[in-house]
């Protein structure tokens, strides 16, 4: 039996639903896995200006995960266009460019600048601080999410993916705001704000004090958020949080994800993405599923369970 692994994120067709999470992928991984096998390639977040990144240490490991505070080091837009984009030219796999900016207008102008033929989609990392709102992340409130997504939508004709933060009490409302403002897909989600303390020195383990937790430790939380978002919006949801195996990916798809991103797992098993692709195919064969897309939202929930889940709705 052959399985159709292809999926569509809006107008963008992918040969399979597996791609890297931004910040855990670079050209060097081509030494380990064949980029032609992936569903898409996703760049590290770029900014218009040069950024040096955060003070060291930038990562600290935790049971079942990793807290990072890298700080989006970026060589800037011109370097990206001249040096980074050509690195991916040899590959037919669609290239998704992750962008960040401190203002809605900054996001829009950067999106305009990277709307070039080599780019297949834009992923807006709106989990970063918004300097117009005291540094609070855009994706923390529906208002600033809607404002920045609208600005992005006016700026580009490319498929627009908006990457949400899990650090909000009501992610489904944020998801709706992004959809309303014209996002083509949602990436759910970024890392969970976290902290660790070194008991030998009494210092925070990270140079930036706070960081973002990723890895298997966050999977159940992000899976829940994917479920909540996918129930609320009609646009595709891309699941991202602790996925390390094909079984994890299948769980995310059943909960409503159309595609998945693999991040931290690549640091441990560098060929994880290829393993997930092959594993998804085996899973579908084993369960007699002809199209991997049939997994999306196929979670079996008895009607009578619905009222029991009212407790998890946010208080109004």
């Amino acid at each position: 039996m052959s399985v159709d692994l292809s999926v569509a994120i809006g107008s963008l067709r992918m040969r399979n639903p597996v791609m890297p999470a931004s910040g855990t992928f670079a050209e060097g991984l081509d030494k380990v896995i064949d980029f032609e096998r992936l569903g898409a390639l996703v760049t590290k977040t770029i900014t218009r200006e040069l950024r040096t990144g955060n003070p060291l240490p930038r990562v600290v490991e935790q049971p079942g995960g990793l807290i990072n505070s890298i700080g989006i080091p970026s060589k800037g837009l011109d370097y990206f266009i001249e040096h980074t984009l050509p690195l991916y030219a040899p590959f037919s796999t669609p290239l998704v460019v992750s962008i960040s900016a401190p203002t809605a207008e900054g996001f829009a102008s950067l999106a305009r600048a990277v709307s070039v033929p080599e780019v297949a989609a834009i992923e807006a990392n709106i989990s970063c601080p918004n300097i117009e709102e005291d540094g609070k992340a855009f994706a923390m409130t529906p208002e600033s999410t809607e404002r920045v997504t609208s600005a992005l939508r006016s700026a580009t004709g490319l498929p627009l993916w908006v990457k949400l933060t899990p650090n909000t009490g009501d992610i489904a409302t944020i998801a709706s705001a992004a959809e309303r403002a014209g996002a083509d897909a949602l990436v759910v989600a970024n890392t969970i704000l976290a902290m660790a303390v070194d008991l030998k020195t009494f210092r925070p383990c990270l140079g930036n004090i706070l960081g973002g937790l990723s890895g298997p430790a966050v999977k159940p939380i992000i899976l829940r958020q994917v479920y909540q978002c996918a129930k609320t919006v009609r646009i595709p949801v891309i699941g991202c949080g602790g996925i390390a195996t094909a079984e994890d990916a299948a769980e995310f798809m059943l909960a409503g994800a159309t595609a998945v991103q693999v991040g931290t797992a690549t640091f441990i098993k560098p060929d994880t993405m290829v393993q997930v692709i092959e594993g998804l195919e085996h899973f579908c064969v084993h369960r007699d599923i002809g199209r991997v897309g049939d997994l999306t939202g196929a979670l079996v929930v008895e009607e009578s369970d619905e009222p029991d889940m009212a407790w998890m709705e946010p208080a109004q």
Partner: protein
Amino acid sequence: MLQKSTLPNHGNTRDGWRPTVSAETTLVLSNQAVNSEYRRLVLSCAALAVSAQPGQFFQLLCPAPAGGKPFLRRPMSVYGTRQEPSQLEFLYKVTGTGTRGLETLHPGDPLDIFGPLGVGFELDPSWRSIAVVGRGAGLATLVPLASAATRAGIHVTAILSARRPDLLVSVDLFRSYGANVVGVTDAEATSGPANVEKILRTLIAGRGCNAFFTCGSSRLMRVLQRLAAEFGLAGQIAMEQQMACGIGLCHCCVRDFNVEGEIVSRRVCWDGPVFDLAEAMP
């Protein structure tokens, strides 16, 4: 806007592509103490792993020791390689959760390694004589370099530094490559920068020296930088930094370098771990 079209296949490996770095499950052949601090780990591995060049490293997926579980891999520079049968050696000191896990390995146990990674040392075949200067675990990194230099007909002077004479590792190994070994230790008060500088000046004035190679001490690095500048010598340094991915993805292992007066941030795992001595900063 132009869109990439649907692809006809399910992502089959493209023609001619082969991994040049891979994760593999190796077999532990031995794992024994070489002195009161260091242990030597010998693995049976595939041919790709023994293609490692001096100065390159591997990311080891260390087993969980009692009371801990390393989440990330641990970078470790290559101590030795052997062909037919393919074997890989590492020298390590038990310091944290990862190396405590390595200590638990027995012959016959599996160990997942990922590599070879990073940019190694480079030897110019026109050189006649080099000095390798290392301290502590940094000595392990310089052993394969001394071996390669000897094979290329380059004489090696090895200045090995440690806290005590019994902690000097690899002296016999360096000697077996024909290296002139000078041990300096804190206990004998011979490891200070002034004495190391004296030894190097004697070398330069006598046999001569084309290049410096170092690892493991920023104090010695500064001595070498000064002398290399004074005598116009080439120099390379293997540097360490906490790592996560090991292959240039995450930007956690950056260090600053002084490139003609401009401070530049580089990834130790990807741009290094071997860098131009003149550009290195402590």
